[in-house]
Structures are given as structure tokens and as C-alpha cells.
């Protein structure tokens, strides 16, 4: 170790070039959580496969084309995309240690996520009222499982988001809290990626075929 190496700021130590020792905790935490998210994506892919196989098995009941309202889907997509953006803004605010902007960006992210959930619950209840509940046909069973599973993830994400806001307020921008926030932002952005697959392959494709 020479003098210049010790004088370097923390984040410069691990470079991925095999110099300066093992990767920083931030890189390792992000990697581990990314592995978990990929396993979550693989679970979703199984639900997607079930939906793709069963999407035409309506058993005489309503098809996706008759049920889906694409205007609601567009609003839901806009909510989730905007919340992904404000979540990114919160990441920048956390990097800047700005309590005010962190709380504002996270609050907007949470409100947009809640608006998305309200629309989804409204859609589900309207389907059930029209006699198109999950027990109506194989198509509807797989639809409710797939979209409902994403909705459960968003709900869990909202609880996590509230926890993060409280922890930033109570504990400040400690390193372990920032690592927790890194995991949350990866989770939230991944939910948006899954929604991209959902609105494209479930809502849009079934409205044209």
C-alpha cells in the first residue's frame, strides 16, 4: 500500500480490473439482489408461459378482447413509467444526501404506484362483477394469476417504499440504509420491466388477435 492508494476515496478502490482488493459492498449488494430479481423474473416467466398456453381457452366465456379496456391500461402504464422515473430521481437525491428531495421523490413514486394499484383493483372488481372472475375459464385463471402476482409485488413495493421513507427520516443517509435503498430501486424498476411485458403481451396482443 502506498500513500496515494490510501488517499483515494472509497468508491475508487474496487475497479473490476482485479486491482485494489474485492469489489465494494455496494457492488456486492447490488449483485446479490439482482440474482434474486432474476429468480423473480423466472417465476413470472412460468406464469407468462401458462397464460400464453391458456389465453385462447375461454370455455365459452368472455375473451381478453371483450374484457380489456386499453385506455385504463395506458393510464396504468403511464403511472408505473412515471413512478420509475421519480424513483430514479430519488436515487440521485439519496446520492446527494438531500432529505427533502428524497422524501418528495419517494412520495410521488408511492402515489403513482398507489394510483396504478387502484386502477388494477377497479379492473379486477369490474371483471368479477361481469361474471368474469378467475374461476370462469382457464384463460381468466391464468390472467388473474399473472396480473395479480404483479399487483402483489407492487403492493409489497409500496410497503417497502414507506419503510425506506421512514428509515431515511429516522436514521439519515447511513451506508446500510443507502444499500437498502439501492435494492428497493432495483426492485421497483424491475416491476416496471415486468409490466412492460404484461401490457404488451397480455393487453395489447389480445386486443389485436
Amino acid at each position, binding site marked *: 500500500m*502506498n500513500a*496515494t*492508494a490510501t488517499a483515494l476515496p472509497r*468508491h*475508487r478502490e*474496487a*475497479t*473490476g*480490473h482485479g*486491482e*485494489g482488493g474485492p*469489489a465494494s459492498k*455496494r*457492488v456486492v449488494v*447490488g*449483485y446479490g439482489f*439482482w*440474482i434474486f430479481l*432474476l*429468480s423473480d*423474473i*423466472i417465476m413470472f*416467466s*412460468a406464469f*407468462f*408461459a*401458462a397464460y*400464453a*398456453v391458456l389465453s385462447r381457452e375461454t370455455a365459452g366465456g368472455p375473451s381478453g378482447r371483450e374484457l380489456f379496456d*386499453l385506455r385504463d391500461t*395506458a393510464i396504468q*402504464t403511464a403511472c408505473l*413509467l412515471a413512478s*420509475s*422515473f421519480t*424513483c*430514479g*430521481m430519488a*436515487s*440521485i437525491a439519496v*446520492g*446527494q444526501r438531500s432529505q427533502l428531495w428524497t422524501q418528495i421523490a419517494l412520495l410521488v413514486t408511492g402515489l403513482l404506484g398507489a394510483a396504478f394499484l387502484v386502477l388494477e383493483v377497479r379492473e379486477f372488481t369490474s371483471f368479477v362483477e361481469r361474471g368474469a372472475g378467475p374461476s370462469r375459464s382457464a384463460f381468466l385463471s391464468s390472467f388473474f394469476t399473472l396480473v395479480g402476482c404483479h399487483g402483489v409485488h407492487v403492493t409489497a413495493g409500496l410497503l417497502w417504499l414507506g419503510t425506506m421513507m421512514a428509515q431515511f427520516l429516522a436514521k439519515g443517509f447511513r451506508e446500510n440504509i443507502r444499500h437498502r435503498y439501492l435494492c428497493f430501486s*432495483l426492485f421497483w*424498476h*424491475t416491476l*416496471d*420491466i415486468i409490466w*412492460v*411485458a404484461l*401490457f*404488451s*403481451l397480455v393487453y*395489447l*396482443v389480445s*386486443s*389485436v*388477435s
Partner: protein
Amino acid sequence: MSHHGLEGEAMDRTPGDDIDDAGRVGAAVRTYLLGLVLAVGLTAASFWATDTHLIYGPSVPIAISVLALAQMGVHLVFFLHITTGPDNTNNALALAFGFLIVCIVVLGSLWIMTHLSQNVHSMDQIMRMQR
């Protein structure tokens, strides 16, 4: 230790990732904004594809799938910061492996199930044959 100086360090970092000095805030916001604009454009394009007559009807689902894949790529790079930078190699490799499993699960299921429904007779067909 210092033979790859600041330029090397800058290349290790993904744009928009872990901003801790004020000078990079503008660049980071621009990265997210660019990602948002690209994502909105691709979303609008796939909604547009559902009710246009400019695309040959049966190929619309393919067009929507391609746009969705592109948008997932945009989200991965601009929002999740999964790139091919040195600090990100493991993440990119894990993503490649995850993508392989997803393809096997989805395409494999579709392949097997379409073959099954073509080759296996349904119950009423069997009853008709037994008469």
C-alpha cells in the same frame, strides 16, 4: 494502482449510477430523462401498432413483442444501469443466464403445448371414435 487514472475510473461507472458529487447530478438527470423519453416513445409505438392499418395485421403481435423487448432493454440500461462496464460484468452475465432460462420456460412451454394439442385427441373426439 494509478496507471489507469481518472479516465479509467469514469469508464468503470455507469452513467447515472451512485451519484455522490454535485457535478454529476445534471448528467444523471439527463440519463434518466433520456431513458424516460425512449420508454414513452416505445410504449406509444406499441399502443399505436394495435390500431393502425399500416402494419400487416397478422404481424402486429410480432411488432408489439419486438417493441416490448426494446423497451425492456431501455429500462435495463437507463434505469437499472445494467451495462457491460467492468463493475457490472457479473450483473450482465447473470442477466444473460436469466434470459436463457426465461426463453427455455416460455418458448419450450409453447412448443410442447402446441404439439400436444395437435397430436392428442380431445375427449369428445375419442368418444366419437369409440362408437
